[in-house]
């Protein structure tokens, strides 16, 4: 599949994860979120920003429990708990969050 952003076509795999990680932009993230029916709030962007920084540092899309643990530490307990995160990203905080953040599917996710 593919996303359309500002007149250019961004290639993605059959599940909607972008192929070339350098293609990511906030506009693209908004487009992916729309396709996922996720309404982006300020807190969503904080999680996306956190995920991108985590990937940048460790070359790894974190598993959901690692996301929750680290989000609690970095973003506070109000966002960093599994209930809130799963409500924000109904198809899986790590799985769907990483998709919007332009990262690969977390290792071990099916």
């Amino acid at each position, binding site marked *: 599949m593919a996303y359309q952003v500002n007149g250019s076509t961004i290639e993605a795999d059959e599940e909607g994860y972008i192929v070339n990680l350098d293609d990511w932009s906030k506009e693209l993230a908004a487009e992916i979120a729309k396709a996922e029916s996720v309404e982006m709030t300020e807190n969503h962007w904080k999680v996306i920003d956190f995920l991108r920084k985590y990937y940048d*540092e460790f*070359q*790894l899309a974190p*598993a959901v429990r690692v996301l929750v643990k*680290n989000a609690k530490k970095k973003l506070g307990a109000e966002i960093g708990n599994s209930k809130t995160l799963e409500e924000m990203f109904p198809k899986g905080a790590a799985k769907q969050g990483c998709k919007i953040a332009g990262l690969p599917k977390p290792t*071990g996710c099916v």
Partner: protein
Amino acid sequence: MSDAKKFLYVNRKAPYGTIYALESLEVVLIAAAFEQDVSLAFLDDGVFQLTRDQSTDAIGVKNFSPTFRALGDYEVTKLFVEKESLDERGLDPSDLQEIVWEDEEEDWEEKPSIRIVSRAEMADIMADQDVVLSF
């Protein structure tokens, strides 16, 4: 955790050129979700997996060495490195990257994950495991 089994992942190959090192790391990350007692061993050319300042630009594959630093997040906190393997390759513990884990019990104090052990100690570590997986 009382019924957790002891798993040791043994890494013997250089990080690039074959897929073993990356596959081992991915299996460790996946298996970490099962709350077992997981350790990693690095011997032979496997010690090169932990060297610092790796660059893969010239070979066009992903440099996954930073991912070892995320292992603490996955409660994998024991990375045993065989001293003789380092010596035989002219490597020193200071040639390895720093990998730490945060101890939740002690106010998130950072503790080193890499432990340099002798060949004899490595044999004891292996003998002490329930499951040994070799890559």
